[in-house]
């Protein structure tokens, strides 16, 4: 029965991991703008998360700063707390990510493991938890922050590329598993975006970007906002590149 066109229930809450700054913070604000209550997850930057919550509240939205290291594998508590304080978590944005760069020949096991654990395994565990409630609600949105790195090579980031390519594969498969419950799973793949995480990259990288400029966190957030919206109910399993044409 392909008759499930679902709309976002009232009090639906979006959980954005790693939302105290950069792209995550922009996503939290954009979703709040679109009417979502937002769980602003952070690991260490409590002050940053509080600033995001204040910005959302002063614009008339609802938000909660919620501490939790996504790699510690206790998503059930995070979800339960958000549900009791804001509402059922019907959107999950797996944004938390780390880098530990080095040529493959020199990459330590720890650098490999940390990047895979945070960028891929944690996203899977959060997704597994989130879709339980979403399939019951017959509505849900999962958006995974992938990267142009993964689909494309980037010397010095074998770990990051593996994790992000893995996220895209996971996105496609989980999308097909839950599609008939009104739950969509998509990825957004940013290129070079102006954040702390890319602040140390040389200016010459812009030569690889057809748009000849870095993107902004708000431009990435706009893509996430769309994928989380009712309007994107028939978009699932896809990856939306926000990369100034890099992957074209």
């Amino acid at each position: 029965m392909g008759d499930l066109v679902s709309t976002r229930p009232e009090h639906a809450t979006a959980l954005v991991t790693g939302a105290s700054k950069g792209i995550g913070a922009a996503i939290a604000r954009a979703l709040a703008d679109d009417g979502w209550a937002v769980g602003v997850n952070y690991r260490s930057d409590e002050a940053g998360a509080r600033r995001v919550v204040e910005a959302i509240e002063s614009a008339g939205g609802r938000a909660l700063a919620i501490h939790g290291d996504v790699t510690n594998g206790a998503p059930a508590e995070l979800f339960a707390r958000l549900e009791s304080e804001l509402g059922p978590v019907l959107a999950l944005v797996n944004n938390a990510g780390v880098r530990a760069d080095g040529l493959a020949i020199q990459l330590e096991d720890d650098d490999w493991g940390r990047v895979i654990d945070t960028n891929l395994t944690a996203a899977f565990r959060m997704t597994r938890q989130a879709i339980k409630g979403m399939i019951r609600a017959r509505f849900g949105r999962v958006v995974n922050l992938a990267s142009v790195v993964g689909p494309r090579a980037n010397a010095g980031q074998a770990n990051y590329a593996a994790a992000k390519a893995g996220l895209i594969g996971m996105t496609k498969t989980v999308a097909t598993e839950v599609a008939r419950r009104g739950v969509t799973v998509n990825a957004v793949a940013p290129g070079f975006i102006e954040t702390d995480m890319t602040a140390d990259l040389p200016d010459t990288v812009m030569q690889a970007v057809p748009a000849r400029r870095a993107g902004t966190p708000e431009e990435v957030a706009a893509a996430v906002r769309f994928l989380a919206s009712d309007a994107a109910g028939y978009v699932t399993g896809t990856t939306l590149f926000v990369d100034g044409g890099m992957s074209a």
Partner: protein
Amino acid sequence: MATTISPEQVEGTVRDALPQFGVDETQITRDASFEELDVDSLDLAELSQIIEDEYGVQLKGDDVAKIKTVGDAVDLVVSRAA
């Protein structure tokens, strides 16, 4: 869960749940197979969630794979809860 759960209780939960997956209520019997009822793996995963919420009994993927009929599901939940 320390409390005893009766097969009738569990069967009632299953009967309430299955129509949410598009199953015709009149087709639900203890001997009906999930295949005949057109209940697929995602439906069974969701049914497992409902049972876990209601009775605190966790059914894993291996358990669910062994369940063929409505009666199998009921018996498994009752035996786990005992």
